[in-house]
């Protein structure tokens, strides 16, 4: 039996939307094919026995890293600095797009 492809054009479009990326139809077709190709390569992991093996979420063994609960002046940006790279500001604030309409 032939394996069903995981990525369809609709599925790629859905992932693109969730990723906040605007893709053209051409891109969607292109990526759909590439994603299926990539999955066919990385699916080789199925061959590895992983039953009972713990996930390596952390490779250094460090745990519970705390810092002192003190303000580090060196690390603070002024309002002016924080806004210095923003394309749109208003009275010391970042301007974001409207949430309830698309304007």
């Amino acid at each position, binding site marked *: 039996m032939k394996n069903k492809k995981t990525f369809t054009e609709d599925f790629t479009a859905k992932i693109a939307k969730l990723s906040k*990326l605007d893709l053209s139809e051409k891109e969607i077709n292109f990526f759909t094919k590439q994603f299926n190709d990539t999955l066919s390569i990385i699916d080789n*992991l199925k061959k*590895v026995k992983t039953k009972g*093996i713990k996930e390596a979420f952390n*490779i250094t063994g460090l745990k519970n890293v705390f810092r002192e609960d003190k303000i580090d002046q060196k690390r603070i940006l002024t309002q002016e600095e924080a806004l*210095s790279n923003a394309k749109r500001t208003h009275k010391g604030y970042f301007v974001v797009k409207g949430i309830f309409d698309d304007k």
Partner: protein
Amino acid sequence: MTNELTLKESLRLLEQKEISSYELTVSCLAAIKRIDNKINAFITINNNASEIAKFKDDHKRVGKLEGIPIAFKDNFLTKGIRTTAASRLLDDYIPEYSATVVERLLSEGAIILGKTNMDAWAHGSSTETSDYGATKNPWNTNHLPGGSSGGSAAAVVADMTIVSIGSETAGSIRQPAAWTGCVGLKPTYGRVSRYGVVAMGSSLDSPGPMTKTVEDAAIILDVLAGKDLYDSTTSGRPKDDYVSFIGKDIRGVRIGIASEYLLPDMSKDVKDLIISAAGVLEDLGAKVDYVKTMNPLYAISVYTIVQRSEVSSNLSRYDGIRYGNDRGHFGEEAKRRIMLGNFSLSEGYAEKYYKNALRVRSLFIKDFERVFKSYDLVIGPTSPGPALKLGASRNQPMFGEMEDILIEPSTISGLPGISLPCGFVDGLPIGLDIFGPQFSEGKIIQVAHAYEQATDWHTMKPVLRTNS
């Protein structure tokens, strides 16, 4: 020309006042002006570099690197100097703070010479995915320099800088070092701070030096290594005195040649160079034999899944609101990685892909623990072959993953390694990768330096045809 000096020589001559920092810096800037139109190693030049050098000449020498010009990969935040990560999304981004790596080098007196080209967001192994054009290999400008730290590598090899800084997620320091013939040292994950480095794969990213000699890499690592309160994944373990490993003899050091890394379809010339390098180490007194490791093919899959998952999370911050342009400015490679990452972390697929990849990652870590019970270090080729031609990465969605197959097993395990030149194939350099258990940078430097001194590959320089 002083731009041709190594870091060690530069420091000695500066100390003895035989050269000035101004002379050194201007000499690098002149080299950039002369040849970078052919190489494209730099995205941004620091216009104040010569001025700063002059200031340093007029003042007492304080830091360990006083007056040394350094080129930084353009994913290191530099306060007041544009930082693009080679993406148009950050085309006009001027950071308000510097990366810890930058701060540490500056506090030792180094000068930012400029910002080097890279694959956009460090996504790749060719420097071809840069939005600012590909970097060319100084040995043959029809070939790629490797990547993602391709600009940093090319700048060192073409003597446009004394030292470069790169970053590696899997191969991004060592593979371009191999393809261009310089030394690239990737430290243990957590040895060098990631604070202020444009994030790619946060459980993998490791900044490190790219230099003309092994000793230069040791001098730089000595400044970079150590705990950083701004990066909670840095280790509290005291750093070693890396320079003290220079010149130590290597008699009795147990070295394994990773037999699985001499791939069946790899050119015989590359294999022969590695085996001959092993012979050199044996002559120097090391105990060398073949060691079996886990199949590196699986590491490609683990790395692809883990890295894309982390990329998708890291690049979600780019909203074009606080800084940079909107998400429409992401290139093809970034879009591909973001989407595949979001897929592998999504409901229904996370177990099958992301979590399973992390389990296999555990197996690689365990396998290396076994290997390093019997061996101090392991060697193999850095890359399966010499630098490929320009255009080779196009339409290859897993180009980097395939090219970095020999580095991925150690990098997903957080291990340190170095690549240094060990010969030539078709007039292009080949790199020897020496890696070891976590925090074995000292021993790696010791063996790499012994090999370097016993051979003369590091003295060979590309001849660039220039108009001057």
